[in-house]
C-alpha cells in the first residue's frame, strides 16, 4: 500500500482519528469565523449609529442657524 494510503488508513483507526480531527477543525474554525463576522457586523452597526448621531446633531445645528 502506498505511503499516502497507509497514512489515511491510520493503522485501522481511521474511523476515529480523522473524525476527531475534522470535528476539531470545524468547531475551531466556526469560532474564528463567527467572531470575525460578528466583529464586522458590530463595526457596521456602530458606524451607522455614529453617522445617525452625527447627522442628527448637524441637522440640529442647521435648525439653530435657521432659527437664530
Amino acid at each position, binding site marked *: 500500500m502506498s505511503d499516502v494510503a497507509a497514512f489515511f488508513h491510520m493503522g485501522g483507526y481511521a474511523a476515529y482519528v480523522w473524525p476527531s480531527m475534522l470535528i476539531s477543525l470545524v468547531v475551531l474554525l466556526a469560532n*474564528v469565523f463567527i467572531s470575525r463576522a460578528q466583529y464586522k457586523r458590530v*463595526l457596521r452597526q456602530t458606524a451607522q449609529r455614529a453617522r445617525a448621531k452625527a447627522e442628527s446633531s448637524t441637522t440640529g445645528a442647521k435648525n439653530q442657524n435657521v432659527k437664530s
Partner: protein
Amino acid sequence: MFKWIHRFGSAPFVYRLAGLLGPWVGWLCLIVMLVGLYLGLIVAPADYEQGESYRIIYVHVPAAILSMFVYVVMAVSSAVFLIWRMKLADVVAQASAPIGASFTFLALVTGSLWGKPMWGTWWIWDGRLTSELLLLFLYFGYMALRAAIEHPQSAARAAAVLAVVGVVNIPIIHYSVEWWSTLHQPATITKIGKPSIHPSMAVPLLLMIFGFQLLYLYIVLLRTRIGILQREARTSWVANLPEIESSGANRV
C-alpha cells in the same frame, strides 16, 4: 506599577493593542498548529500499545487543558471585575465563554472517539470525562444567565458571581467525581492521562497545546474588540476610529 495596570483599564488603549496583536497571533497560531499536526500525525511513531489511535491526544489533551484554563481565566477576570469594577475584565470573561465551551465540547467528543477503540463503548464514566461534562454545564450556565438578564450591567455582575462560584466548586466537583469513578469501576482502565511519552511524541503535543493557547488568545482579542465597541459605542473616540469612518463612508 499600578499606573501600568491602569493603562490596561482604558478601553481605547486595549482596543488598539488588540487590533495590533490580532493578526500576529493569528498567523503564529496557524504555523504552530500546522507544524504540530505534521509532526504529530506523520513523523511521530505509532504507539506500541494503542497503535495509531493515540494520535487523537494531539487534539484531545490540548482541548481538555484549555477548557479548564479558559474557565480559570474567566473566573479570575470576573473576580477582578467584581472587586475593582474594571469593565474590561468583564469583557474578557464574556469573550472567553464561547471558545471555552467549544474546547470543553471538543475534549468530550475527542475523548469518546478515543475511548471507543480502547474500551468498545462511546462513553465511559471516567472521572476526567465526567468532570469535563460538568464543566460544559458550568459554561452553559454562565452563558444562559448572561443571556437571560436584559440589563447589561447586572447581567455582567450576575454572570461574574456565577463564574467565581463555579471556579470555587471545580476542585470539589473534580475530586468527588474522581472518587466516585474509582469507587464504581475497579481501576482496570489504562491510564487515560498523558502516557509516559516518547520525546518525538511529546514535542508535537506541546506544540499543539501552544497552538490552542494562541487560538484562544486570538479569539479573546477579537471578541474583546467586539465587547469594547458594544460598550463604548456612544463615546467620541469610537466615532472617529478610522474603521468606523471608512465603513461608514463607503456606505454613503
